C-alpha cells in the first residue's frame, strides 16, 4: 500500500507531509531564508532577482509574486515557512491567514472574536459543495 493519508478527506486543509515537502523543498527554503533581515531587504529590493536564486518552478514563483497562499500551499509550501513572506510584507498572521479564506482581514478578525469558524459542516470533503478542492476560488465555496 502507499502512504495512508486519511487527512486528505478534510476540506480546505493541506497537510504538509513528505510528498508536499519534496514538492515544496526549494519554495520553503526560499521562504525560510527570509528569517534573516539581510535577506528580507534583498527580497524587497528586487523580488524577481531574489526568487531566481532558488530552483523553484515558475508556478511556485508566480504564486509567491501573487501572494496566493492557497496556491503556495498546494505547490508544497508550508504555512510556517511561507508566513515569512507575509512577515516580510509587514503583515500579521490574521492578515496572512484571512487571505486564504472567504473573509477579508477585518471580517476574519471579527469572525474570530465571534468564536471562529465552526467545525460543523467543515469536517469532510463531501460537506463542501466543491468537494473542498483547494484550487477552487474561495469566493465560490459557500
Amino acid at each position, binding site marked *: 500500500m502507499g502512504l495512508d493519508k*486519511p*487527512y486528505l478527506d*478534510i*476540506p*480546505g*486543509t*493541506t*497537510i*504538509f*507531509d*513528505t510528498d508536499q*515537502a519534496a514538492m515544496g*523543498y526549494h519554495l*520553503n*527554503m526560499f*521562504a*525560510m531564508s*527570509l*528569517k*534573516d*533581515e539581510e535577506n*528580507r531587504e534583498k527580497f524587497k529590493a528586487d523580488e524577481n532577482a531574489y526568487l531566481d536564486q532558488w530552483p523553484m518552478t515558475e508556478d511556485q514563483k508566480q504564486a509567491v509574486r501573487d501572494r496566493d*497562499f*492557497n496556491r503556495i*500551499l498546494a505547490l508544497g509550501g*508550508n*504555512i*510556517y*515557512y511561507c*508566513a*515569512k513572506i*507575509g*512577515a*516580510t510584507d509587514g503583515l*500579521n*498572521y*490574521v492578515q496572512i*491567514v*484571512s487571505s*486564504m*479564506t*472567504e*473573509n477579508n482581514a477585518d471580517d*476574519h478578525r471579527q*469572525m*474570530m*472574536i465571534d*468564536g*471562529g*469558524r*465552526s*467545525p460543523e459542516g*467543515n*469536517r*469532510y470533503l463531501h460537506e463542501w459543495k466543491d468537494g*473542498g478542492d*483547494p484550487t*477552487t476560488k*474561495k469566493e465560490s*465555496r459557500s
Partner: protein
Amino acid sequence: MAKISASVYTSHVPLIGVAVDKGLTQDDYFKPLFDGYEPGREWAAENTPDVVILVFNDHANAFGLDIVPTFALGMSETFEPADEGWGSRPVPTVMGHPALAAHIAHSVIRDDFDLTLVNNIPVDHGCTVPLSVMYDQPDEWPCKVIPLFINVVQYPIPSGKRCLELGKAIRRAVDTFDEDLNVQIWGTGGMSHQLQGQRAGLINPEWDHAFFDRMVADPEDLATMEHVEYVREGGSEGIELVMWLVARGAMSDVAGGPAPTEVHRHYHVPASNTAAGQLILEDGS
C-alpha cells in the same frame, strides 16, 4: 534528588508575545485573555522551579527541511530568541541546563527514545511565549530552561502514545539526577486552530474542553487519539496539542502514583487565530 513537581499546559500564540512585548495586555482585545492568566502567574511566582523542560515545536526557525528531527533536546548553555521574519522578540536569552539535559539524554536514549541532541540553536515563539505568559517581562527568566523540540510540522509526526511515553521516560530520567532540583515540565501549543487553507479560522470549544477533561482524568486514553482527529476537530495546527501529552506523561500518576491536583484552568477565544488554553497540574506524589 531532582523531581518533577508540576506540569503546565499552555498555548504559545505569537500574538500573545506581541501583547506582552508592546504592553497591550490590558487592551479590550487582550484583557480577558490576560485576566485568565493572572492566577497562573501568581502560582508561577510562588512555585518558581529551578528548571523547566519546555516542550514545543519549531516553526521553521531553528530547523529547515534539511534536518527534521522527531524529538530534539537542547543541550547548550544558552538559546537565543529567533528572528522569525518580524525581528527577534525583546526577551531575555533562554539559559539551558547542560548537566540535566545530558543526564536526560543518556537516560532516555538508553530507554529506547531516539533523540536528536542539539546545541546553539535559536528558540522561537513556541518556547518564549509560554515564558512570557507565566513570567511577564523580567530582565532574566527566573529559571533554567531545557527546550524539547517535537516535530508536529512535517508529517510523519510522533503519535500521542509515543509523546506520552517520552514524558514517562523523562520523569524516570529526572528522578535519577543527583542534584536537588525542582523541575517543571511544560507542554505547549494549541488549542484548536487552523492557520491555512479555506478552512482557516476553525475553532472547536467543545472539543477543546473535552481535551482538557481527558488530559486531566485519563491521559492514557487521550493518547490513543489519531492525528486525523486532531486535524479534523481541532484544526490543522491544533495538532500541536499532541505535545501536551509529553508533559502529562511526566506526572507520577501515569506510572502508578497518586493523581495530580488541578490548580488552574483557563480558556479564551480568540488569541489571533487560535483558541488559547491553559492548565496547571501539581504532581500528586
